[in-house]
């Protein structure tokens, strides 16, 4: 961000980028059919293209290194974690002295010092700490995460940034591509998501294997595996004895030691072998051992996709690549399909607009309108809004304890309920398979007087 344009000009004309120029300034048989070669492309990549890297762990370190070496200069990185000794074998931007420091901050500092002209901006926080204005500034988001929840959150955020015109046509300039890498031991995947156009994370949730869950009664009465003993301490004994007056922190050695001790006792009692501190750590933190080479391959594929997206020089990966290097090397590419019922991105989850005459209308009248309107013809709509991140139930007739507490809203005007032009209302009704969102369009006084 702070680079002066003169240094950029100097940079993009230096020999350092000759290899990129060969790709970007000449046509070729493998080019994207609409690719126009020009020096402008490299200039864009270096001077305006803004990339967000989510995660500064195993994949994140590789991604930051790759992107910086490719010429991207405006990179942000988010990670809420701090550096642990066990990261150092593969997260090569970190050294022993960095243990305990923020991954994002150390990684950014390393890259900025090592790659001249590159400006990585670190964010030592959670992805949820930023709102849509933050995410909207990026051209491309690339994720190296180990959590499905975080992936889904980013996916939902990018879907929410899409805008549609009055004919419900997607405005392509509102699309921020998401490149998502993932690894689990010797297995990895890289995928390209064009929110609103191609399969999103939620469309393909079944691809993410659920965590191993043991039946509670097995854990409690008939344990057979060392994992059963650890799960028992985690799920039953910890909440019961609450030894440190806190919930389990998988990074706290005193917590892990307590679980290790209790799980060993239980294992002895049932004659089960194999409870070790490492296994405790693995079960509690749900760790799958990370393999450096898998990270490197997946990150390379992701960084290449970022490059292709940013320059349009080549068709992007379409759209899901699987990689496995446990027995030789295996890759497979297929096109994950959009799920028409996806809760995150299905076309019907595009908010619909409902025109009202004024926000002096009462909530009861709005509900009546939803029931009478030929477009909706609802039966028992339950309404909620999300105002500044907080959910509020406006009315729900079907659940007595909610009905009693929200009944008085019926007589209130929409303006009194903080509902205005552009407010998005969530509506659940027996007539639709999912909750739908409706954006109210209420003319302001100015518009009305113009008409």
């Amino acid at each position, binding site marked *: 961000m702070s680079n002066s344009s003169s240094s950029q000009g100097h940079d993009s004309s230096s020999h350092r980028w000759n290899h990129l120029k060969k790709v970007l300034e000449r046509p070729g048989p493998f080019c*994207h059919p609409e690719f126009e070669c020009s020096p402008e492309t490299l200039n864009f990549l270096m001077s305006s293209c803004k990339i967000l890297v989510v995660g500064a762990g195993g994949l994140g370190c590789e991604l930051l290194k790759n992107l910086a070496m490719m010429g991207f200069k405006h990179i942000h990185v988010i990670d809420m974690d701090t550096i642990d000794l066990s990261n150092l074998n593969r997260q090569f931007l970190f050294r022993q002295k960095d243990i305990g420091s923020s991954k994002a901050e150390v990684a950014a500092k390393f890259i900025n010092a090592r790659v001249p002209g590159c400006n990585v901006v670190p964010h030592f926080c959670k992805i949820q700490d930023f*709102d*849509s204005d933050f995410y*909207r*500034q990026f*051209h491309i988001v690339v994720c190296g995460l180990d959590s*499905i*929840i975080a992936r*889904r959150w980013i996916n*939902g*955020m990018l879907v*929410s*940034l899409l*805008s549609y015109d009055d004919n419900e046509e997607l*405005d*392509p*300039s*509102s*699309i921020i591509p998401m490149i998502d890498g993932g690894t689990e031991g010797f297995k990895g995947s890289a995928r390209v998501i064009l929110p609103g156009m191609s399969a999103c994370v*939620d469309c393909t949730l079944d691809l993410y294997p*659920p965590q191993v*869950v*043991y*039946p*509670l*009664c097995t854990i*409690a*009465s008939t344990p057979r595996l060392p994992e059963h003993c650890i799960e028992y301490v985690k799920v*039953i004994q910890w909440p019961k004895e609450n030894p440190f007056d806190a919930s389990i922190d998988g990074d706290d050695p005193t917590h892990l030691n307590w679980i290790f001790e209790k799980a060993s006792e239980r294992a002895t009692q049932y004659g089960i072998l194999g409870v070790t501190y490492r296994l405790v750590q693995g079960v509690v933190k749900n760790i799958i051992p990370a393999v450096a080479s898998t990270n490197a391959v997946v990150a390379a594929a992701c960084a290449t996709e970022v490059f292709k*997206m940013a320059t*349009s020089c080549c*068709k*992007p990966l*379409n759209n899901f690549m699987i990689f496995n290097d446990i027995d030789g090397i295996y890759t497979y590419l297929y096109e994950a399909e959009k799920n028409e019922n996806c*809760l*995150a991105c299905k076309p019907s*989850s595009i908010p619909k607009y409902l025109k009202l005459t004024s926000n002096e209308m009462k909530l009861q009248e709005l509900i009546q309108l939803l029931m009478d309107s030929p477009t909706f013809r609802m039966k*028992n709509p*339950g309404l*909620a809004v999300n105002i500044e*991140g*907080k*959910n*509020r139930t406006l009315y*729900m007739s*079907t*659940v*007595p*304890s*909610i009905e009693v507490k*929200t009944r008085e809203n019926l007589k209130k005007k929409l303006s009194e309920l903080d509902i205005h032009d*552009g407010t*998005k209302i*969530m509506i*659940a*009704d027996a007539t639709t398979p*999912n*909750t739908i*969102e409706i*954006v109210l369009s209420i003319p302001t006084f100015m518009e009305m007087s113009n008409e």
Partner: protein
Amino acid sequence: MIKLFSLKQQKKDGEPTPRSGNQKKASAAQLRITKDINELNLPKTCNTEFPDPDDLLNFKVIICPDEGFYKGGKFTFSFKVGPNYPHEPPKVKCETPVYHPNIDLEGNVCLNILREDWKPVLTINSIVYGLQYLFLEPNPEDPLNKEAAEVLQTNRRLFECNVQKALRGGYVGSIFFERCMK
């Protein structure tokens, strides 16, 4: 395939995108739970209680069985729905101390659809039915409270007696149960 590059260049200088996008899309969990709650269709023996009607993610379900061993009792379950719902099941605990083979004294409930057999197509409604079924057909094969399960398997009369004692408030063995009659 769209060509994003040229579009992006126009977009740069970041004028905010119009209309939608101004408001964040509700989370998938929130959308789904709103649907689940609005469509709750419970038998007359079951009730819900929402301490905060704006918070659909945390609530209680009260079950008053009208037949079986537990007829006349009143049992409260707390439901906590997480951000990954419906990919993950809600966390359900029994807040009423109960003498039951599949519910331990800490309120852990052994019901397959709450753990290993959970599927995103299941709903809050399915769980409530599952819980209700536990009171009609306690299952000694999958015990969380081993003592209760053994009694149920070996001496149904005694089990029935013990349940009655616990419901009315009293000791079963060395464990005291608070009265939980309707």
